[in-house]
């Protein structure tokens, strides 16, 4: 099997007046789900389309397993892509759409039925695509991408239009594919979605690379304060004790404090030592969505 590594190097796309993608380089490894993250207009769709020879780059190259998409002898056996919710003729049934794809690439027609089952679209297979919901079109798109049993999967904002159940289904599907050693590249404008799905992230804004790495590392490097929230009848006594431990304390309503600069454990220990009763103690994760927005906003989100 091909190694399925995606390499984007110095990719650039100018449209009249807009630089949609600006000297962008990153790599995507097999065996992992990689989130391609950025606000609307960041250049994600343009990048993915250049990778697939649909949009012609102004400069730079993109390869999959060492080859340009155009140079793959049987691209459908190497790469499956879901770019817009299915790109099927509205007047054709889902099954016939998939069969047309099979005929084009020389796959047996039975493959259409197999992928219909895989995405759970069997009951709607003989209805015309124009009657499909957005979620069903996404499933049809995923089905088409899976026809050639490809090593690499590329999906552009696949969660759009899926209900929570559909999102969970897709997450399991993609993570399962990555576990089998496949390369999975998924774009999104929501960090929270990627936190739940991806192993690695590539963050872009205004067509440029902002961060790339394992999700945990990137999140850690993005900073944001870990905070501890407590409730106590003796706020003043606790504030004084915590100040001695080097924490920053702010009042947050009657009997409630928000503490930063120390761990939750340290807060509990300090309270015990000071003989202050705690009615509530919780550690709050940083609001990474805010940090993400700050990080990318500086690059002019929507152009």
């Amino acid at each position, binding site marked *: 099997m091909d190694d399925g590594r995606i390499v984007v190097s110095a990719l650039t796309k100018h449209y009249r007046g807009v630089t949609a993608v600006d000297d962008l380089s990153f790599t995507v490894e097999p065996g992992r789900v990689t989130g391609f993250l950025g606000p609307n207009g960041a250049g994600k*769709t*343009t990048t993915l*389309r250049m990778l*697939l*020879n*649909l*949009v*012609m780059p102004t400069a730079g190259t993109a390869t999959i397993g060492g080859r340009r*998409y*155009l140079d*793959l002898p049987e*691209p*459908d056996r190497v790469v499956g*892509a879901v*770019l*817009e919710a*299915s*790109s*099927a*003729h*509205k*007047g*054709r*049934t889902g099954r*016939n*759409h998939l*069969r*047309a*794809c099979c*005929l*084009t*690439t*020389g796959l047996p027609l039975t493959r259409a039925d197999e992928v219909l089952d895989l995405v759970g679209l069997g009951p709607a297979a003989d209805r015309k695509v124009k009657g499909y919901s957005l979620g069903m079109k996404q499933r049809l798109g995923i089905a*088409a991408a899976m026809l050639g049993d490809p090593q690499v999967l590329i999906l552009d904002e696949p969660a759009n239009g899926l209900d929570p159940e559909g999102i969970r289904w897709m997450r399991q599907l993609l993570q399962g594919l990555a576990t089998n050693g496949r390369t999975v590249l998924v774009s999104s404008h929501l960090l929270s979605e990627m936190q739940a799905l991806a192993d690695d992230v590539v963050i872009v804004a205004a067509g440029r690379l902002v961060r790339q790495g394992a999700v945990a590392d990137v999140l850690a490097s993005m900073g944001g304060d870990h905070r501890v929230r407590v409730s106590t009848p003796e706020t003043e006594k606790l504030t004084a004790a915590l100040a001695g431990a080097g924490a920053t304390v702010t009042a947050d309503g009657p009997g409630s404090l928000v503490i930063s600069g120390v761990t939750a454990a340290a807060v509990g220990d300090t309270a015990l030592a000071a003989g202050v009763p705690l009615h509530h103690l919780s550690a709050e994760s940083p609001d990474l969505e805010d940090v993400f927005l700050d990080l990318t906003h500086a690059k002019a989100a929507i152009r």
Partner: protein
Amino acid sequence: MSRTTLMLRLVRAEFYKLRTTSTWWIFTLATLVSTTVMLIVDCVNANSLLKPFDQYVALEAHGHGGRPIPAEFLAHMRSEWELGHSAVTQATTIYTAGQLIGVLLACLLGIVLITSEFHQQTATTTFLLTPHRDRVVAGKLGTAVGMAFLSWLLSTIISVTTGAIFLHHLGYGTQLGNAGVLRAIALNLAAYAIWAVFGIGFGALIRSQLGATVSATVLYLIGATAAASVFELIYTYLIPKSWILAAQVVVPAVASTVMISPTKTFDQSPPQWVGAAILIGYGILAGVIGTQILRRRDIA
């Protein structure tokens, strides 16, 4: 895998795509209806043209209500009658009855094959599966020519069976042993195929489905008439040389008429092969330019 296998696969897939949408039925129905209508018109005309001149006049001037026919009108009728009063000519016309609308339909089908990828937003799927876009165009070209063949076949079967019975009934025999008649039927196929090629090129050149279909239809239907007037004007006021009139064959619609009619369509009309060469030339030119544009087009 060989190029031929690949092409056959793409053509097969394109045929399947056609059959699984309404385009297939619309195209078949349009072929049937236009052939039938034109066949009726041609048979009615043949019926009167094949009569002796006085009966022809009586039939044609039926609406004139017994008033005397003006002399110049009578002269016009005589020249019409002399051109058409031949079993071979009428057999040719009847056996190729579907052509007038049929070649336009073949051209429109070629256009739709290409432009529907953008109109129906299926281009992403198509070019993902076949990233070499010239292969996509070649596959569609094969499909358009194949469809043109089927359309010609359907139209010819209807025209020849009905027409042969009709002519035989009138007492002229079927004329199917006549080489000129058979050549006209074969050239008719060439016309269907060439217009299909032209449609593919035109569709690749002009992205908008509506724009391409409307302009091709207008070009086809009024192109010949408009060309005749324009070239007549040039001849009268600018260059009074007779080759100017012959030169109107450069207009696709005129080239098509010249190619398929065994007799002269206008006084200076060049031989049939000139019309064919010009039409094929346009088809190739449009196809090559269109494919080059298509190869660089962003599918976004």
